[in-house]
Structure formats: C-alpha cells, structure tokens
C-alpha cells in the first residue's frame, strides 16, 4: 500500500523535496544556533581577540533569523505539496467513480458513507504534512547531527546514533504495538457502548412507552463507566511513549557528555568543543521526539487511504463495448426487457427476477411496489448502470451491451432516484441536461414543470443559487427542478424514479398529476408507490420481491383481488368513491 501512496505522490516529488529541505533547514538552523552560541561562549572564555568571535556572532544572528524564515517556507511548501497531491487524488478518484455511480459502490446508498469517502481522500493531506515531512526531516537531521559528532568525536557519534535510533524508531514502533493492543482491549467496550447509544437514540419511543428509559439509561451509563475505567487504566501505558523518548534523550546527552569529558581529559577533544558536542546531542532529539504522534497519525490515515485505494480498485459494474460500439440509436425507438434478472454481488436472491417490459414509442408504464421490491434496480438496468445477471435489455432490437453507455442514457434517462441539485445556479443545473439550451427553452421546461412563476418571482431568477447550501428550495421545488431538467433533456424514453419521494401527500399528488400531464405522448416509465393519477397510464406493473406479481390497467387491477387493490384501498380515504 505504501508503494501505491508513493506512486500517487511521485508527480509532486520536486515540491515534496523542497518542503523537506526547508524543514531540515529549520531544524539544522536550531541545531547550529545552539552549537554556535555554545562555541561562542566557550571560546570567549578563553579571552581571544574579538576578531576570533566575529564569524560566530554573525552565525548566531544568521541562524536565529534563518530558523524563522525556513519554518515559514517549510509550512508553505509542505501544504502546497499536500494540496497538490490532494488535487491529483481527487481527479483520480473522480475518474474511478464515473463508471461506479450509482450502482457499483455501496457508498452511493448512504450520504454518510459518501461524505466519509470524500473525507478519506483528504487524509492524503495529513500524510504529507504530518507524517512524510516530519519523518524525513527527523531522519536527515539525525544523520547530520551524528555526522557532525563523528567529525568531532567518533565515540560520541556512536552513542548519539544509538540514542536517536532508540527514540526515533524503537519507541514509536513499541507505541504502535501498544496502541494496537489498547485498541483491541477497548474495542468491545466501545462496541457495547455504541449499541447502548443506538438503542437509546433509536428506540427511545419504545423505551418511554414501556417505562424502560431509566433502566436503559443506567445500563448505558454503566457501559460508559466501564469504557472510561479501561481508558483510565490504559492511559498509564500510552503516556509512556513521550516519557521514554525524553528519558533516552537525557541518557544519551549524559553519555555524550561523559565521552566528551573523557576525550577532553585525554586530549582527544578541544575544550571549546565539549559544550558543542553535548548541546548538538541534546538538540538533535527535537525533531525526533514528535515521531510518536507522527506514526500514530500514519496509522489513522492508513485506514482512510486503504478505503480510497479500494475505491480506485473497484471494477466497473458495466463493461463498455469501446470501439466496437454500435452508432447511437435514433428516435423513435422501442425498449424491451426480456426475462431480466439482476443479482447484486454477495446477495443470495435476485433484486430483479425475470421481468418482461415493452416500451413501444408513446407508451406510458408505471411500476409500483413497496421499497426494496426491485423497481429502482429495474430502472438502473434500463439506464445501463448495472449489468443484468440474466435476460436482456433490447434497444431498437439490439442488446444494450452493444451500445456505448452514454449513448444508451442519451435515449433512456430522466429523474433518477435522489436526483441531485448541484450547488450552482438554477440555469446551470438545468443546462446540465442540454448545455446549449437558451433561456427561453429553460423557461419553457420550467413552465411545463409548473415552476416558471416561482423562478420568475425570485430576485435572481435563473441565477438563483440552489443545492446543498442554496437553501429556500422546498422538497417539491427540488423535484420539479429535476423534472424540468429531464424534460429539457427530452430523451426518447423518460424515466421517473420516485418523483414524489419525500413530499407531503398533497404536494405529491399535485406533482404526480402534473408529471403525467407533461409526459403525455412521450414514452415514459414512472416508478412510484403512490397511486394517485395512475389511471392515466397505459400499463401498471406491480412488483414484489423483484418479481412482477400483477400487471394491467388501473381499472383492471382495482377490480381484482391482490396487492394493487390493497395498496389502492389503503391510500384512499374510505369515504370517497373509488
């Protein structure tokens, strides 16, 4: 995995080197500042002429200034490299996601997972700024310090190298092992606590009504106390890492001082060099001490990066024909599903099981059924988002597999499930479907979706920002915008997946009526669980557990015993005539 991360970072090698160089320069300036200052004092004590000190004085001032400036350069350079790596990774992840959305990746079934994935991508930033640069710096600075000591006093260099290796390598690795063991011990307590939280937050009504809230709170608090007790106990060991590194720093400094004093008395080292060697040893630990948190950070980021790499490796659910693709089909065109079955990877039953459907030009079909009955999967198959596991979809008589996926979706498209409004203007959101549309065409589509008056009443009109933080767009307006967009695309076959999802009943019925009116004469498939207005479609297909259990016109189905009649009955006021 490290190799692949290195591969991702390779294009930014030059900038990373710049960042590491600046960081090394910062630490070396600190080292040189103390070393030179110590030499300055020691030499001054020998009462030489002032000229003998002038270079050291200049050095002290230069290193002092240099440290601040280098630090600034390092922070800018490392963030620049990290952000460039982030930009590259975002591009790569986007490219990998294109063939996966929405059916090839579990993340597309949950907004939480999706935003976690986007956050995971940002972990690459942390790896650069908080792991890569500090670790490289520590290695180089440690090497330089040992080198300086080797020139002045080889025995001290050996002691220093041993100390640095212990504090910079052995201690972090031990701490990582400890952290893993701690995590394993804490994991069951955390899981138990999370289960209590879920029970209290999602089962609060059941608890309240059955008078069990107090008991449940007590046992959640006991679980919380158990976790806190474990955490307090493990604190004694996890706090050891930093202390151990400090102790090694001290012992090494004392050892180097002993060696320096010894060499001084035996004449192997000039007196003025004693404080230089000792202080270089002491200060050279400064970039090494933060390695414990750096390694922990790497472990945390590794999980994120692993998930990102998994996304990059996920195979596309649909194979494209490439150069062998048939030319795009031209309207009018018939779409047929024959014995269509879909089974998701890892599932034991088919999500869609042997469905037949024929859409001749102008025909309008409604697919109804409970959630999870396979309606959306059927549409995903027609839009060539997923590959059927059995049966075929024919487009103008040819299997869809022979067309380019984008060409299929130019013919069969519309309002997908959770149609997304982008955080941009209404105009840009609509023009997504037809980039060359004029404002008049946009307004005409809005008119059909019965949104024109609303848009024209907005101060910014078509330039009004919508989307996640656009605010002030109700659920109904959102769905109508999605509908206007689908109408603007004007595909030969319009798909409408749960266009009234999440709307209150009155709005939903109004929208459904408008929808069916605006698609009159177009080939249309509408997926819904509301039955209002379905007497206007040519055929209703009732699905249960992936299978078609009933089909026919509204009048036929209402008259016959079966799930449609149940649904119809349940969704109608009893007193009104059916």
């Amino acid at each position: 995995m490290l190799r692949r991360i290195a591969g991702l970072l390779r294009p930014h090698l030059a900038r990373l080197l710049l960042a590491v160089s600046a960081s090394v320069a910062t630490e070396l300036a600190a080292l040189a500042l103390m070393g030179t200052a110590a030499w300055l004092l020691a030499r001054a004590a020998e009462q030489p002429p002032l000229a003998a000190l002038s270079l050291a004085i200049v050095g002290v001032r230069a290193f002092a200034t240099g440290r601040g400036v280098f630090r600034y350069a390092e922070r800018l350079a490392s963030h620049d490299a990290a952000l460039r790596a982030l930009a590259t990774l975002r591009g790569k992840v986007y490219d990998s996601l294109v063939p996966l959305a929405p059916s090839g990746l579990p993340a597309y079934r949950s907004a939480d997972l999706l935003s976690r994935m986007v956050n995971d991508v940002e972990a690459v930033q942390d790896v650069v700024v908080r792991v890569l640069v500090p670790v490289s710096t520590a290695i180089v600075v440690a090497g330089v310090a040992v080198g300086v000591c080797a020139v002045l006093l080889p025995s001290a260099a050996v002691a220093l190298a041993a100390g640095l290796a212990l504090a910079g390598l052995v201690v972090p690795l031990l701490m990582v092992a400890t952290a893993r063991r701690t995590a394993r011990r804490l994991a069951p307590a955390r899981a138990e606590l999370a289960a209590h939280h879920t029970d209290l937050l999602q089962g609060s009504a059941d608890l309240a009504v059955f008078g069990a809230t107090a008991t449940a709170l007590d046992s959640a608090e006991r679980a919380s106390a158990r976790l806190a007790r474990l955490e307090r106990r493990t604190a004694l060991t996890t706090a050891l890492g930093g202390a151990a590194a400090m102790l090694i720093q001290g012992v090494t400094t004392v050892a180097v001082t002993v060696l320096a004093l010894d060499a001084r008395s035996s004449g192997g080292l000039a007196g003025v060099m004693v404080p230089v060697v000792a202080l270089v040893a002491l200060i050279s630990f400064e970039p090494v001490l933060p390695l414990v948190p750096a390694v922990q950070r790497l472990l945390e980021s590794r999980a994120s990066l692993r998930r990102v790499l998994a996304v990059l490796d996920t195979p596309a659910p649909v194979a494209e024909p490439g150069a062998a693709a048939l030319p795009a089909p031209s309207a009018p065109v018939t779409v047929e599903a024959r014995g269509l079955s879909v089974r998701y990877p890892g599932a034991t039953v088919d999500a869609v099981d042997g469905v037949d459907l024929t859409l001749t030009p102008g025909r309008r079909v409604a697919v109804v059924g409970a959630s999870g009955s396979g309606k959306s999967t059927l549409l995903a198959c027609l839009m060539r988002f997923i590959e059927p596991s059995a049966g075929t979809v024919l487009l103008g008589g040819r299997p869809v597999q022979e067309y380019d996926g984008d060409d299929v979706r130019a013919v069969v498209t519309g309002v997908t499930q959770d149609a997304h409004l982008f955080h941009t203007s209404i105009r840009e959101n609509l023009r997504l479907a037809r980039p060359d549309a004029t404002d008049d065409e946009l307004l005409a589509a809005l008119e059909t979706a019965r949104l024109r008056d609303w848009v024209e009443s907005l101060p910014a009109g078509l330039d009004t920002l919508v989307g996640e933080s656009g605010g002030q767009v109700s659920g109904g307006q959102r769905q109508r915008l999605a509908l206007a967009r689908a109408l603007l695309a004007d595909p030969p076959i319009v798909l409408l997946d749960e266009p009234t999802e999440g709307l209150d009943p009155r709005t939903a019925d109004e929208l459904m009526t408008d929808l069916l009116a605006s698609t009159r004469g177009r080939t249309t498939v509408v997926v819904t669980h509301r039955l209002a207005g379905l007497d206007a479609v040519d055929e209703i297909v009732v699905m249960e557990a992936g299978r078609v259990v009933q089909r026919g016109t509204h009048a036929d189905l209402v008259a016959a015993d079966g799930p449609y009649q149940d649904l119809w009955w349940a969704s109608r006021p009893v007193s009104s005539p059916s």
Partner: protein
Amino acid sequence: MVDVPASRRRRIGGVLLNRLARRLLAGLPAFRVVTVVFTVLAVAAAAAILVQAELLARLLADGVLSGPSVSSAAGLLGLLAGVFAVRAGLSWAQQALAQRSAASVKAALRRQVLRRTQELGPGWLSGQHTGGLTTTLGRGLDALDPWFTGYFPQLFLAAVIPVAVLVRIAVADLASALIILVTLPLIPIFGALVGMSTKRATERQWRALERLGGHFLDVVAGLPTLRAFGRAKAQAEQVRRIADEHRSATMGTLRIAFLSSLVLELVATLSVALVAVPIGLRTLNGGLGLEAALLVLLLAPEAYLPLRVLGSQFHASTEGLAVAERCFAVVDASGGPRPVGGSAAPDAAAGVRFEDVTVRYPGRDEAALDGVSLALAPGERVALVGPSGAGKSTLVNVLLGLVPPTSGRVLAGGVDLATSDLEAWRRQLAWVPQRPHLFARTVAENIRLGRPDATDDEVVRAATLAHADEFVRRLPQGYETPLGERGAGLSAGQRQRIALARAFLRDAPLLLLDEPTAGLDAGSEAVVVEATARLMAGRTVLVVAHRPAMVLDAGRVVTLEHGRIAGPALSAGVR
C-alpha cells in the same frame, strides 16, 4: 457532577479558557484535585528545568576550562541523569493524568447528553440525525483528547515555567533577564496583533475555501445525475480545475495565517541571539563567568518554548471543542415534553376521549392534527385509516404521551392526560409500533421490556400467543439469543411478532397498534393478523391500518385526511 464555583473556574481559566472549555472542565469529578496536581507537576517541571540547566552549565563550563576527569565529575553526571529521569517521570505523570481526566470528562459528557436526549424524547430525536449523534458520542468525543493532553496541561506549564526561568536568569545575569522580559510579552502581543490584522482577510477566504472544498462532495454526490445526462466525463476537467483553485486559494490564506507563526518563531530565536551575543562579549571581557553564560544560554529558549507550544496546541485542540459544542447544543436544546408535574391517575379501562385536539409541528404550515374529536368506548375496537401523512401516527403519539397537543385535550376516565402522571398512564398501555425497535439484548429481555420482573414461563407464554415461540426456539440460543444491532438477523415479520409478545406480556387494558402488518409478505401477514386478533380480545383497541385484513376485525373505522376526521365514521366492511 461536581459543580465548580464560577469564581474558581475564572481564576484558573482567565482568557485562555473560554466559556466552552470551562463548562467542559466542570464535568471533571475531581476538578480541584486535578488542577492542584497539574500545578504541582508544572512547578516540579520548572524546578527540573532549572536544575538540569544548572548541572549541564557547570559540567560544560568545567569541561571547557579545566577538563575534569569523568570520575571527578561523576557526582554531577549522576545528578544530571537523575534530573532527566525526573523530567521524563513528570511528563509521564502529566500525560497519564491528562488522559485519565479526558476519559472522565468524556463519560460525564456522554451521560449528560444521553439523559437530555431521553428528556427531549422521541419527537425531538426523530428530527435529529441519530447516526451522527451516535458517532459524536463514540469516536467523536475522542477529539477532546488533544485538548486534554495538549492544551490544558500546557496552560499550567506556560504559567509557571517562563516566570521561574526568568527569575533564575535574573539572578545569573540581570541584563539578559531584561532582554527576555521585554521580548517575552511580544509572543502573545504579536500573536494577537497578527491574528487581528489577518482575521478579516482569512475569514473571507475561509468562506471561499469552504465553497471550493465542498465542490468535490457536491460533484461526487451528483455523479449519478451527471451520468444520467452524459455529463460525467465532461466534468472531470472541472473537478481538476476546481481542486487546483482550491489549492491556490488555500495557499493564499495560509500565506497570511502562517505569518503569525513566522513572527513568533522569529521573536523566540532572535531573542536567543539577542541574549547570546552580549553574554559572549561580556564573557570575553571577563564580565561574566562561562558557567553563568552557559546557564543563560541553556535557559533562554526554555522561557519562550511553553508559550509557543501553547499556541500550537490551541489550534490542534479546536476540533475537540467543536465536538463539545455539539454535545452542549443537545444539552441546551429546547423542547421536549411538558414538565412532569401531574399526579392525577387516568384510567384507560374507562375509555378515552379526544376533545378538539390540534397538533402543529414547528416549521410546518399544515397542522398534523386539526381539531380532532374522537371517543373510544371501553372495549371498543377502532381502526384508523387514511393516506400516509394524514396524521394517524400523530394521533397515536398523542395518546402515547409522546407528542403533546398544541390545543385541545385528551381525557382518560375523565382525567386530562396533560395533568396526569405520565408513567402511571403508560403502565396501562401496550403498543405495537410500525417498526418496533429491537434492543441489543437477548430475545427474552426484549420481550420483558415492559415487565422486567416477568418469569420465564410468562415470557414463553406471551411469545407463544404472539406466534413468536416457534421461531425463537429455533434460534441458536433460544430465548437467550442476543439480538444484534437493531435486531439484525430477524425478518420484519419476526420482529413484529417479538413486539406483539411484548404487548401480550404487558397485558394492558388499552392497546395501540400502528400498522402492525406494514411491509410484511403475505405469509407473515396472516400469522401476525391472527396473533393480533388474539391480543385484541377483551381490550380497548386503536389500530392504524393499511390493509383490509386488519380493519375487518374493527368495530368502527375512522378516516383521517389532512389531520381531520373525514366524513361520517363508517362501520367496517363498507368501502
């Protein structure tokens, strides 16, 4: 929870602990002890720093001037090693104590938040993102660790060490002490000045950054839509361009934001140079001994270090404070049920009457229930039907005491529920919700929810009546089988039958059923309907129904539409 006197908290915190942090610390059971120990540790750390510098300066000065043998310096060397060991020990004690405090505060915070969520109740929780709240209370709170292990103990170090170091330097060399005394305050002053002068610029830029940073999530989330319109590939270029814009905009912000660290770093290192060069010159003149000069050189950086570290720890710990803020937002959330004060004893067996009950949810135009009047005679079975969103569940929730009427009242045995003892009222209810929550406990414990003292025989009997016994016995550990998170592993029909067993065991005079067969396949539905019919016998029943099977057993059918009772109440069977 120990309440910390406000005066004491302010004294410790001052400006460095904002209101939020002070509130956080109030969750620490042994707040006084912890602050005393941290103070003692900081004083000890300062003493160790002074002794270490003293010993090192003497050893190194001797090494330069006389070159003592290692054996003659052995005493000093041993002491120096001892001081290093003491410093390591102090650092360990401080970190261990900080982590232990963090664990205690997190537990206290969790307790506060959980208690408050239950007070606020299911109505409030249904409007929340409970998954996010679970994460916040679990992993999310760990973000507080850096605040406790980094910033908080550093406060004590930053208060003690610079003063101690400055006093010691003043004793050794007054001139150097003066230089440090003048430059030391520059760190907070420059920090504040640079911060203030760049604040507006950075704030404006952060807002722009947020927008650019959000773009990637926006595009990724909208990718299915982009593909539906054949725009996915065309957007790839845009993604790269915006990511690059994000980078250059961020760098623009950072160039300013890092200025403060440049200034602080410069103040600290230049001050060391400002101290080192004059003492070098005075050592040359013989005005200052080498040992004193080395002592000043070794101590000078120690005066600046704690303040600089404090600044960086503060930034590293802001995420934790944001999590704490989210927790306190729950604790401070307004709403929740009416205050429990009523003591009147309602009697469910005497029938229930809704009198002109209206419920409005905040932020919605339409009333969920609009002047509903309805009576349930003792022993009567009423089916409630109507399109989804018509107010059926709200009506049941009012009866359960989960949602208070905005106006109007509900009487049980002539007692207004609003003035009655809610717990006593609920003891007379059994409820089978549409999607019952199964708890992460054993099957038996789940059935016992409403009667924890029921015997095993009673549990089995209730399960048998609910047609649950037959599948429970086939589970790996029977009634002792633990149910996974949210009862995973059971089908919807089986979950419904566990809920029915709960209601059987509860054996209450008033039974509320909310679409107990919704989402079940035909086979499960028949079993659940059969068990439900048995459960209804001899009780007053209000059943929210979708399917004809549930309604046929009812004595009366009431239709709700847009929060109102529509048309005349019809008897079952009429369509």
